[in-house]
């Protein structure tokens, strides 16, 4: 009765938008809120998470025949912890300032529910190729989500984007946006917008939604 498992391409595409880890599945929220006060830490975080997710998915997929059901979560977390240690030492060695700024959030990748859920849903059941495609798609989706939130927060909070000034110097900078409350408010509103777009799209199709957004702007 088992449902047909999705192919590699489906896994990849699903990861980016239709099953976006942050906006659709609400997974891995801690780094999403904690490191998105500016683009640079957000992208470093996305890179580290992508490295761990891809490596962990590959390793778990390679040893999926050996997994015992009651021990699998433990095996997942220990595999992930190993790769997180590698990523953490790498960041500390090559981008020390950034590693200081990210602080405990790099080791906290170990408990990012996104990675464990991908190991459980995809890598422990499907072949290496599918697992790799899934990991790359999910990483892209995660990076996209981090980028959208960090863009809103950095531009409104400091008037910059990746450290470049994009708003005039007279922009006061909404201090609240780079502080913790700004993270919650931004993510809440963006979730609402994502939900609204997907509802309208389901009703009227993508093209009409885009036109509607455009006419709103004018």
């Amino acid at each position, binding site marked *: 009765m088992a449902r047909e498992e999705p192919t590699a391409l489906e896994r990849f595409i699903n990861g980016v938008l239709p099953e976006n880890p942050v906006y659709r599945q*609400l997974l891995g*929220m*801690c780094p999403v809120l*904690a490191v998105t006060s500016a683009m640079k830490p957000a992208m470093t975080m996305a890179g580290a998470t992508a490295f761990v997710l891809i490596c962990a998915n590959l390793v778990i997929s390679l040893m999926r025949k050996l997994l015992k059901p009651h021990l699998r979560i*433990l095996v997942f977390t220990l595999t992930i912890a190993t790769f997180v*240690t590698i990523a953490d030492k790498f960041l500390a060695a090559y981008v020390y300032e950034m590693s200081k700024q990210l602080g405990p959030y790099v080791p906290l990748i170990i408990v990012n529910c996104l990675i464990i859920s991908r190991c459980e849903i995809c890598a422990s059941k499907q072949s290496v190729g599918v697992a790799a495609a899934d990991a790359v798609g999910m990483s892209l989706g995660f990076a996209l989500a981090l980028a959208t939130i960090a863009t809103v927060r950095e531009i409104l909070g400091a008037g910059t984007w990746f450290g470049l000034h994009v708003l005039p110097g007279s922009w006061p900078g909404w201090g609240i946006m780079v502080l913790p409350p700004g993270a919650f*408010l931004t993510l809440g509103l963006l979730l*609402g917008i994502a939900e609204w777009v997907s509802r309208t799209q389901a009703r009227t199709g993508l093209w009409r939604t885009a036109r509607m957004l455009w006419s709103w702007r004018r």
Partner: protein
Amino acid sequence: METLTSLILIFIGAALINNFVLHYFVGICPFLGVSRRVDTAFGMGCAVTFVISISALLNWTLTYFVLRPGAPLPVWVWQLAGGDPATQIDLSVLSYIVYIFVIASSVQFVEMYVRKFFPPLYRSFGVYLPLITTNCAILFGSLEVMKHLQDPTKLWGLHEALALAAGGGIGFTIAISLMAGIREELDLADVPAPLKGAGIALIVAGIMAMGFMGFTGVEKGVAGAISTLLR
């Protein structure tokens, strides 16, 4: 009395000023997932407080005696095996793997205990009890303790580690219970359809975070009050 004051300050700092959920953003998954009813939320908070204290206790012991730079146990083993006594031994590269292993085992024990003695609580937790393993708050507590065990000149004792863990757990309980209370009322409110569920919960959390920012600077007043009381 210095010790008592510093313990109280660590506790208040972890519970209110730098609340684990609303300042450090750890433990967001249960904060959004299990905050629909106050009693479940409170139970979840208690479970997290319990696990975070146990894992801080175990991880402090392991870090202090085995994992920190210059810890006694590996040095002793090294010298027993006839190694050069001048060698620096630092096992802290293993700390993440050890921590997550300790946390996963202690969660397993708590789960068995709750299933045996509190079946209704076990049913209402559902999938979230095993998920305490992947609750960032627990690992974050252990990592904060580890941070204070790196510098050999000012090491944290067990009492300080436990004050931080208990404060963090109680701060989590406060935040998740408040959130559940607000969400019970929100069910009756007219929320725009796309924001229903997680969206409005996050916005409420943002407003709560603003409220908790009001605790900034409380520690000075508390320290002053304690010193007047003890004089």
